[in-house]
């Protein structure tokens, strides 16, 4: 039997009917048409499906859509705001942090999660925090460079903050970034 859920995705509220066995990633891709979140392994290993759930990066292939009822979800589609790329997107572009791009949405969301906790991570910390995201193209070097560069840009304030405490979803960065940042638990 289908179940009704209410989920705020990238700042926009959705009320949907879902089968309880629907994975969050399937719900995002197939019911909301947000296909930027990818499915690689479907077993919690590769990180391609990483999204923000209430302010924390999670693997959406290991979460049921019904478990996200009432939650704030942020996907790669919510990173750009007001017609401008998020600094993490600019940095991945400029530093060649991608080749085929399959891992990139999950990689960027995981990176944003890291930068919200730690605005100035060392290379070792970046590597450690992205250990749950596999890339079979880049060799990771440029991904680390991109995250470091995004960190610099964000510290210099080149962009709207992504770490707005988004419980209300109405922070300074607006609904989109608020959705990505979500209502982080203390």
């Amino acid at each position, binding site marked *: 039997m289908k179940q009704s859920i209410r989920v705020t995705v990238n700042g926009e509220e959705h009320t949907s009917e879902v089968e*309880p066995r629907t994975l969050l990633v399937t719900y995002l891709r197939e019911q909301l048409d947000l296909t930027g979140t990818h499915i690689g392994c479907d077993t*919690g290993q590769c990180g391609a499906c990483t999204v923000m759930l209430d302010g924390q990066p999670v693997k959406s292939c290991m979460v049921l859509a019904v478990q996200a009822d009432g939650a704030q979800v942020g996907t790669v589609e919510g990173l750009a705001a007001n017609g401008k790329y998020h600094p993490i997107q600019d940095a991945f572009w400029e530093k060649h942090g991608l080749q085929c791009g399959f891992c990139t949405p999950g990689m960027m969301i995981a990176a944003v999660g890291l930068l919200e906790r730690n605005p100035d991570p060392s290379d070792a910390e970046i*590597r450690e925090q992205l*250990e*749950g995201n596999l890339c079979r193209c880049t060799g990771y070097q440029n991904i680390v460079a991109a995250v470091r560069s995004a960190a610099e840009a964000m510290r210099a304030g080149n962009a709207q903050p992504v770490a707005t405490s988004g419980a209300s979803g109405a922070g300074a960065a607006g609904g989109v970034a608020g959705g990505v940042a979500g209502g982080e638990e203390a």
Partner: protein
Amino acid sequence: MRAFEHRAVRSAEEAVAALQADTAGETSVIAGGAELLSLMKANLIAPAHIIDLKPARELRGVSVAPDGSVRIGALTTLADIERDATLAARLPILPAAVRDAATPQLRNMATVGGNLMQRNRCWYFRGPYDCWLKGGDQCFARDGENKYSAIFDESPCVAVHPSDLAPALLALEASVLVVGPQGERAVALGDLLRPPTAERRRETTLGGAEVIVAVSIPAQPAGAHGVYLKLMDRQAWAYALVSAAAQMTLRDGQLVERARLALGGVANAPRRLPAVEAALEGQTLTPALAAQAAEQAVAGATPLAHNGYKVQLARELTRRAILQAAGMEW
């Protein structure tokens, strides 16, 4: 994945009632889902009803009781443990234990209760094999691919318990608080995670209608310090080949007042090391004593064809854990 009915509950008692009501035994509890969904995707279980514990918010969090014991709710996530200020100050062995468990995204979902109740990672178990643990008549790992299997023979099954949290909790002498049809009970972690037997082909003694509400860690002696060391196939994100947890209390920097040690990755359940503890307590700690005591960690080991390397890892990791917990050079 088979279709199922999903119901959120607000308390452990409500979950117990739902488990009890299903006489067919087709109900599973879900917390973070990282393990339950893996088992369901692999068709190892196919519940008809899923009881979602997550809304039971009072089951999440860390608190200190007046007697100094620390209570960690069953829904506390591994990420919570990693970042909790109380644990960092009082029981740093716990943040150390989860830091290398799974990956950041999984730690954000994975809970303490689910981590203790996870099934083993034996590939015959996870794959389409009717092995002994799943009710068949043969353990395929014993004479097959057993690189990751147990080096202590305590059950027809030789799979190891994969949790990183469990060995650390065992060294802390934690007990697990459980509610069931008969009310609440406390069970020592070492009695909850047990080698499977012919009558109980599972890694745990938890009853079918029981739910974990918390783990409780007794007050530790003043000056106690702990470490958790984990050896992996690669440097990031892997299950432990062998792990060692040590919680030590020294007097005057040298005299071992109290030693509590446990190994992961070597047996069906995390393994306390009473002989090592006895060899250390009351003695003046030196590197030579640590090496000598660590020999006891592998006494009685019976490695299989492909896991003999674990004997050496277990011995060496125990030695290092003893010295590091004592703040000594290793």
